[in-house]
């Protein structure tokens, strides 16, 4: 991992041991990275590719985003040491692309946190934060 360079998503299979809220039966997702998409990525369910979530690295939306990872979640993700966005964890926000009449929004209240060392992930609700679930992109 190059020093001083923020972690970027790379293609791979991300596993959600607890599933993803709304898609609890889906624990394996493919992270699709495409140069054409720029900062946007897709998480597609391995079992059901028709379930695809657009995601954006959270720092693209809020440079100083402050993430809280409770201790049990650190264990679940197999994180060693203090989690730091862009250094030892990848943090992305789920984006609702809207329907053409409304602007796209991102869920900053419940970001998806990935440990890039083992590709384990969880959507971690930021209970103590004031971040919006529909941050206008």
């Amino acid at each position: 991992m190059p020093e001083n360079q923020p972690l970027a998503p790379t293609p791979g299979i991300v596993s959600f041991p607890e599933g993803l809220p709304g898609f609890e039966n889906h624990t394996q997702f493919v992270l699709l990275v495409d140069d054409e998409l720029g900062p946007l990525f897709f998480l597609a369910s391995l079992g059901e590719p028709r379930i695809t979530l657009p995601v954006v690295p959270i720092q693209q939306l809020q440079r100083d985003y402050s993430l809280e990872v409770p201790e049990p979640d650190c264990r679940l993700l197999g994180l060693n040491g203090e989690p730091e966005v862009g250094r030892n964890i990848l943090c992305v926000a789920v984006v609702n692309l809207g329907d053409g009449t409304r602007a796209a929004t991102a869920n900053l209240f419940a970001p998806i946190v990935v440990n890039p060392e083992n590709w384990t992930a969880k959507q971690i609700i930021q209970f103590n934060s004031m971040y919006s679930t529909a941050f206008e992109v």
Partner: protein
Amino acid sequence: MLVFRRQQGESFLVGDNVEVRILEISQGQVKIGVVAPREVAIFRSEIANLNRQAALSDRQSPAVRGAIAALQKSLGRRGEK
């Protein structure tokens, strides 16, 4: 599966916010109390709804492609700021 024992009156935590109490054990029955902030369940179902709304069934569809192009433009502007 995690297996452990608790005496009557004892409790354990599930995650950070949910406490399960063993209130009473008698004649083969266990009475259990769950203490969880109401918000926890509400938040979780809201997040589930938001995820379902955000999910795309066809990322190649013209509408989705259009929305992606618009989003890229807006993210690009954000990057310049």
